[in-house]
């Protein structure tokens, strides 16, 4: 009463000088809190924080701000000389109801969740200025790994949660937007002879790249991202979320009767600074004798030779701009939000351009007392012009291009490819500039994503919710090889490779939840149903004899040379259709709001399998105990919160559609007809089985200023589906798809939240995400000594192969032969090492651990945040370096003129005796280039590659004072500078250890850790401003 009275009394403060105080309010885990009331003490001046947790209020130096929010302890803040404040609210323990959006677009209190859950705010992702928001997640979530394909614009990113479970199937998590499943596929180029959705040219996901489709999402529409890494995802989303789920919640407008407009932009310059090192000391030749060849084993250049810096002559400074606009309007029962984004990038690689436009409109309407609905519609348009990568790309040629030739001089007088040495242009490497200008590739995508949510709450104890989503896109893409390219023969006269892909995905989830509390117990039962219907159609055609190089359509070739996917015979596209129905239930009971037990069960029916075993089901259970509530004495110590939790789940993972149906191919022999193809698509194929459990604890200290969250997980996968492996012809086929093999993933994740400094002027909070994984192949068929994903066999004799009892992430390769003492064996005739030309495990790509270190600081009007990403351990096959070595351009070949004796033992029959013969054969590589050219792949598998990267660094400044005040309509104005990937400290001797030899379209473990012809991550500097109106 007294408090209210004082409000009335002091409505008009006198004397003191008013100023604008801006600030931001953070809640648990440093997530911004919206709708927090900020009141000037003793006045009626009040405001609420926006979705970024920001506020702006007028106050004098001598006043105090009172910050209140439901569930949080009230906090008071003396204004003083500050113009900018940052506040972290502490949960009110008594009535803590911190909520997290989890599966099925439902919100659960953090206390009851029996598994690790981590969220990243949309703001954080937006500030990272990554157009593919997935790349912004790296380092921000423990147990989440993003393997980028490379530094090109529009490149795909492989996302993995808690390691690789499946050897042959997709390991990427499920993406869910506002409770609706959205497609994140990356085009897989492999068509298996035209029978699947690949390219008609049937490639191996190495030479080109296609965006992973979730990158279509506008980062500016994201309110928050919650990562479900373990059992919870599988329990409720089922088999497709067996590798986890990424739950995206979009921004919604407030129903506060106001119009809010926000605009921000970013202008970015990008420089490729991480390139493989090449030396330009020797001219073309063989064994020291000059020749007109690319292989640089000729004599050294002399002062008379003009040498060019071809690397500099090739790349350009990338430039891009982004403009984001959002308009919100809400009244009592309805709100609207419109957003638009335009992104236009010219990347550092010539011709590599990427444009994207996003539009989205969303609405929330309350109908009557019990119902609210939220429809939304997004439209995305993107165009990506891409240079080719890997073995067919520009980079390898650029690196080995003779230094005494200017790459800019690539055109002959006729405007065509100008070969250096060979009369036949097709027989000679493509000049890299010729390559990017004449071997063209582009994708165009149009996507619509519509969601509809309905919530019906007829009584206090019952809630019914429906989430409906329709996702559709068309992507048209092509690759064109010029008629003179070395990737073709002269007879082919160019190649035009087109695909026309369309996707139609519908899914809905309907749930009904009832809850009841009796005494100390409260319970909740949820039942639900999910229907999913996804269809992808693809036409693909490849042909030769290009009619007009300026065209890119599929009619641009000689019809007689065209090859299409199998269904084209019938005038139809190839299809991939996947439908499933699921019923699930979850029962939950809690005692004294301190012990929480959840059990869920899901029944699935999937079109992937034949009727006999189309239905399968699996359970999940979890327990959460808030020890600090059970034993109140704990709270008197520094420890104010202690949670123990454990959960377990089993699930199934289904194969690709049709993997269990052998198909007939037309035969061209006498009488025609059909015969089975090579593939035993075994009709008895079963889903893979995944069993996982996790144990965890969360401790918070000093009124939650410091907290630690630790998790151990263990996932065992059995009856793994292995596709396309050879076995005895006893099956009646050559290649087989069978349930064989098992593996295990274990890991430890630690998340530390540190509210380091909470001063009046200066605040600093940090988050550390630690991740360590182990994986092991537990079973492989005895007749499969090595299983490998063939896409990863990118160059020479190294590939992503795995063996029994080894890790899932190993590299198998050819190597050196050694005696029983482990010494190199040397050939008595050549003096060179004897090679072991067998694929053996010679590396493991799995890092020892990774650590993400997120920091947020504020000082007056400045906010400063940065993310360090540390990776320790993990091996890389540096195929680029091997290529450069075999062509005499690697620095390791610079000391070729000094004779040497390779330290080893002569293979003379005595090598394994007590008196082996030490090698004494002298070699001078300059005249014996085999020293370099026969070095085995083992030599180029670099062990224990570490990196420390400054991923993102952002400095924000909020304008306050007279300047903003005079701008009338502007509520707030800020400017920022964000630098991406500025610092990388690594022991890797290649360009950038963040590499992937394949695209995210490759399945299984994929090609991360294979470095071949890819550029590293560029350094980007973004500047822009934000304004709210």
């Amino acid at each position, binding site marked *: 009463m007294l408090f209210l009275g004082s409000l009335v009394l002091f409505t008009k403060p006198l004397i003191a000088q008013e100023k604008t105080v801006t600030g931001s309010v953070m809640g648990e885990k440093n997530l911004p809190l919206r709708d927090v009331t900020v009141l000037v003490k003793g006045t009626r001046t009040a405001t609420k924080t926006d979705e970024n947790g920001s506020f702006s209020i007028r106050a004098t130096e001598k006043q105090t701000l009172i910050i209140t929010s439901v569930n949080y302890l009230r906090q008071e803040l003396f204004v003083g000389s500050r113009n900018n404040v940052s506040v972290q609210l502490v949960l009110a323990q008594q009535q803590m109801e911190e909520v997290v959006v989890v599966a099925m677009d439902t919100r659960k209190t953090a206390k009851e969740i029996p598994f690790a859950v981590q969220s990243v705010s949309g703001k954080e992702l937006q500030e990272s200025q990554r157009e593919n928001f997935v790349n912004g997640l790296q380092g921000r979530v423990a147990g989440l790994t993003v393997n980028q394909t490379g530094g090109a614009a529009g490149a795909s990113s492989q996302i993995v949660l808690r390691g690789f479970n499946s050897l042959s199937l997709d390991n990427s998590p499920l993406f869910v937007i506002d409770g609706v499943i959205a497609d994140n596929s990356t085009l897989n180029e492999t068509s298996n002879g035209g029978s699947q959705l690949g390219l008609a040219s049937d490639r191996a996901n190495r030479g080109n790249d296609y965006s992973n489709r979730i990158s279509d999402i506008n980062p500016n529409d994201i309110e928050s991202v919650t990562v479900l890494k373990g059992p919870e995802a599988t329990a409720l989303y089922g088999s497709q979320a067996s590798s986890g789920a990424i739950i995206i919640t979009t921004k919604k407008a407030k129903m506060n009767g106001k119009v809010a407009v926000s605009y921000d932009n970013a202008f970015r310059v990008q420089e490729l600074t991480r390139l493989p090192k090449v030396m330009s000391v020797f001219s073309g030749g063989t064994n020291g004798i000059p020749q007109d060849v690319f292989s640089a084993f000729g004599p050294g250049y002399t002062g008379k030779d003009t040498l060019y810096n071809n690397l500099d002559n090739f790349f350009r400074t990338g430039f891009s701009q982004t403009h984001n606009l959002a308009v919100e309007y809400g009244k009592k029962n309805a709100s609207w939000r419109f957003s638009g984004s335009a992104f236009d990038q010219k990347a550092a690689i010539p011709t590599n351009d990427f444009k994207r436009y996003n539009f989205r409109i969303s609405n929330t309407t309350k109908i009557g007392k019990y119902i609210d609905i939220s429809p939304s519609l997004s439209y995305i348009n993107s165009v990506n012009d891409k240079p080719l990568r890997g073995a067919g790309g520009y980079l390898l040629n650029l690196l080995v291009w003779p230094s005494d030739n200017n790459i800019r001089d690539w055109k002959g007088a006729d405007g065509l490819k100008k070969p250096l040495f060979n009369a036949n242009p097709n027989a000679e490497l493509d000049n890299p500039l010729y390559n990017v200008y004449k071997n063209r590739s582009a994708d165009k995508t149009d996507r619509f994503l519509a969601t509809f949510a309905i919530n019906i709450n007829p009584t206090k104890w019952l809630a019914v919710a429906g989430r409906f989503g329709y996702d559709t896109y068309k992507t048209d893409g092509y690759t064109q090889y010029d008629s003179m390219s070395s990737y073709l023969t002269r007879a082919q006269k160019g190649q035009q490779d087109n695909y026309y892909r369309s996707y139609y995905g519908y899914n809905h989830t309907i749930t009904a939840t009832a809850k009841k509390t009796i005494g100390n117990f409260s319970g909740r039962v949820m039942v639900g149903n999910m229907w999913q219907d996804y269809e992808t159609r693809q036409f693909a055609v490849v042909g030769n004899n290009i009619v007009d190089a300026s065209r890119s359509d599929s009619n641009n070739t000689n019809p007689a040379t065209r090859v299409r996917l199998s269904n084209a015979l019938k005038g139809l596209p190839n299809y991939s*259709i996947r439908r499933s129905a699921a019923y699930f239930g979850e029962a939950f009971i809690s005692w004294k709001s301190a012990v929480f037990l959840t059990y869920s069960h899901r029944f699935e029916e999937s079109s992937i399998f034949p009727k006999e075993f*189309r239905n399968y089901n699996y359970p999940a259970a979890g327990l959460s105990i808030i020890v600090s509530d059970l034993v109140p004495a704990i709270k008197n110590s520094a420890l104010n919160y202690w949670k123990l939790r454990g959960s377990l789940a089993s699930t199934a993972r289904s194969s690709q559609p049709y993997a269990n149906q052998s198909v007939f191919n037309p035969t061209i022999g006498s009488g025609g*007809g059909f015969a089975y193809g*090579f593939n035993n698509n075994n009709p008895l194929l079963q889903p893979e089985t995944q069993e996982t459990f996790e144990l965890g604890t969360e401790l918070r200290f000093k009124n939650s200023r410091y907290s630690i969250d630790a998790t151990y997980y263990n996932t065992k996968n059995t009856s793994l589906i292995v596709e396309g492996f050879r076995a005895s012809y006893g099956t009646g086929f050559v290649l087989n798809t069978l349930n064989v093999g098992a593996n295990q993933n274990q890991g430890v994740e630690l998340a530390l939240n540190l509210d380091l400094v909470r001063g009046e002027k200066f605040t600093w909070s940090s988050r550390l995400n630690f991740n360590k994984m182990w994986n092991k192949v537990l079973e492989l068929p005895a*007749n*499969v000594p090595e299983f490998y994903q063939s896409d990863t066999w990118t160059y020479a004799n190294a590939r992503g192969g795995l063996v029994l009892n080894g890790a899932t992430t190993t590299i198998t390769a050819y190597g050196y032969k050694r005696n029983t003492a482990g010494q190199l064996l040397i050939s008595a005739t050549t003096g060179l090492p004897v090679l072991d030309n067998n694929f053996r495990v010679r590396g493991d790509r799995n890092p020892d651990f990774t650590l993400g270190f997120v920091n947020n600081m504020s000082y007056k009007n400045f906010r400063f945040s940065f993310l360090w990403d540390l990776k320790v351990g993990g091996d890389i096959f540096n195929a680029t370096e091997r290529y450069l070595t075999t062509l005499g351009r690697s620095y390791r070949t610079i000391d070729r003129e000094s004779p040497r004796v390779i330290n080893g033992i002569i293979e003379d029959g005595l090598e394994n005796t007590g008196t082996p013969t030490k090698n004494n054969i002298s070699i001078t590589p300059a005249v014996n280039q085999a020293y370099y050219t026969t070095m085995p792949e083992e030599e180029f598998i670099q062990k224990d590659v570490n990196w420390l990267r400054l991923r993102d660094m952002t400095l924000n400044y909020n304008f306050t004072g007279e300047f903003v005040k005079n701008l009338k309509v502007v509520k707030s104005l800020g400017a920022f500078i964000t630098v991406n990937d500025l610092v990388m400290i690594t022991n890797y001797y290649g360009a950038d250890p963040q590499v992937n030899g394949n695209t995210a379209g490759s399945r299984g473990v994929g090609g991360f850790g294979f470095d071949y012809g890819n550029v590293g991550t560029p350094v980007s500097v973004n500047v822009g401003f934000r304004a709210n109106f």
Partner: protein
Amino acid sequence: MIAISCYSCSKKIDEAYANPNAPVKVPVEELLPQITSAMAGNYGGHGTMNDIRYIGAYVQNWQFFQPLSNYDQMGYTNSAGDVGQSTWRMHYYDIGQNNVRLIEWATEEKKWDYVGVGKAIFAWSWLTLTDYYGDVILKEAFRTEQITFKFDPQDEVYSYVRQLCFEALENLNKTGDGVSQANLAKGDLYFYNGNTTKWKKFVYGIMARYHNHLSNKATYNKDSVIYYSNLSITSNADNAMVSFAASAIGATNNFFGPLRGNLVGSGITAPTAIRQGAFIANLLNGTNSEFAGVTDPRAWYILRGNTNGTIKGVEPNKGQTIIPVADRPENFWGVSQNPSATNTAPANDLNCRFIFRNNAPFPIMTASEIQFIKAEAAFRKGEKAIALAAYKEGIVQSFGLLTGTYNVNIPAGKAITDPLLANYMSNPSVVPTSADNLTLTKIMLQKYIAMFGYGILETWSDMRRYHYSDKDAQTGLQVYRDFIVPSGGDLFPDNATKLVYKVRPRFNSEFVWNIKELERIGATSLDYHTQEMWFSKP
């Protein structure tokens, strides 16, 4: 509400199951063409023809043009190239599941003629397979969910062949339902054109072979051999032949024709650049002691001449270079080897004969083979008159096959005429005047001649029954008279002086992916191929 929200889900799910991109089921009429063509050499180049390029050197039908080939030496090549391993693939893959489905679906559709044909082909291919490899995967065959496979002993495969023959006959005898000659002809166009009577004769022929192969056993039943021979193919019109459309598409042409160019392999581990062997040449040019001085008119139909206009052959493991250039036989495409070896395929088959033309049909079983099977059994039974009659008929049918089917591109003046045939038949060293003078040697050598080129796998079975050099107790002479078994440096080192009796299981199928089972049956030992099989043992 939740329960009814997806009323039609199960139906929609079921609709989405089947692969819409490629057929998972095709009409049985569309399956049969590839299956029958695989018996010879299919679109992919697999079938018995592929392998007889090598096995022909074991039986000395032909030899490699250069010395020291693995097969002239009765050795083998066990490597990723799968040399001489097409029969394994033909049986398990090319015929394999396609035929399993054919039988399954034809049964569903009550097309009993197709069921019978499918079983007949399986009876033939199981017998061919086991005679080639010995122990093979039988009981676990075609299990799509397995990754390793147990081998079964040969006697079990033989029993199964017999069972399949009876099942084939049972179905081929059925009428009504979906049985129709016109419909069978759709799939059978390039074999028997829908004639189930001929298919039955083929099945009886398999039974005759089956019983004949067991001649060394106490259980050998001569009467069964004669019985089934009488029911089997008796005239060349009923011969089991794979024919070829021979269109512009290479795969529709004969595997041995110059268009497909499969006789050019010039490495000693894959020696397919072959020349006629000295043994066959000598049988036909009057050099062989058994037919001394008799010029066989069939020589110019099945063999090649040389610059001197004579018929000469290449000795095993010696190559053609030791032969004077004018005596070196042309290769089977009629390309002269004077003065030096030429393996390249000619542009057309205008100078090609016999089974070496692009459109030449390839015999799987012929009337003359059946007559010789009968002659041997009757002879062993002591029914000499029956044996002689069958022997003579075998020769006549052999001539008939050549004049009827392969009367193409015969050099001027070399064509077989009735007087020539009569002259040959009246020569007592060929056809004894008295049945008592008939010998096993004559029967087996005439069978050898009649089966030249196409019947190599059966010839090999015959020679293995006689252990290449067994002597005829009656005459004291080697049954295969003048046949010189390789020895010393002419024999493959791994053989350890023993002769070849089988082929090791396919490298890329079994050695790489089923090695444990090979170890169990001893197939990893270097001389596995010299171990005698069950069928020829007592």
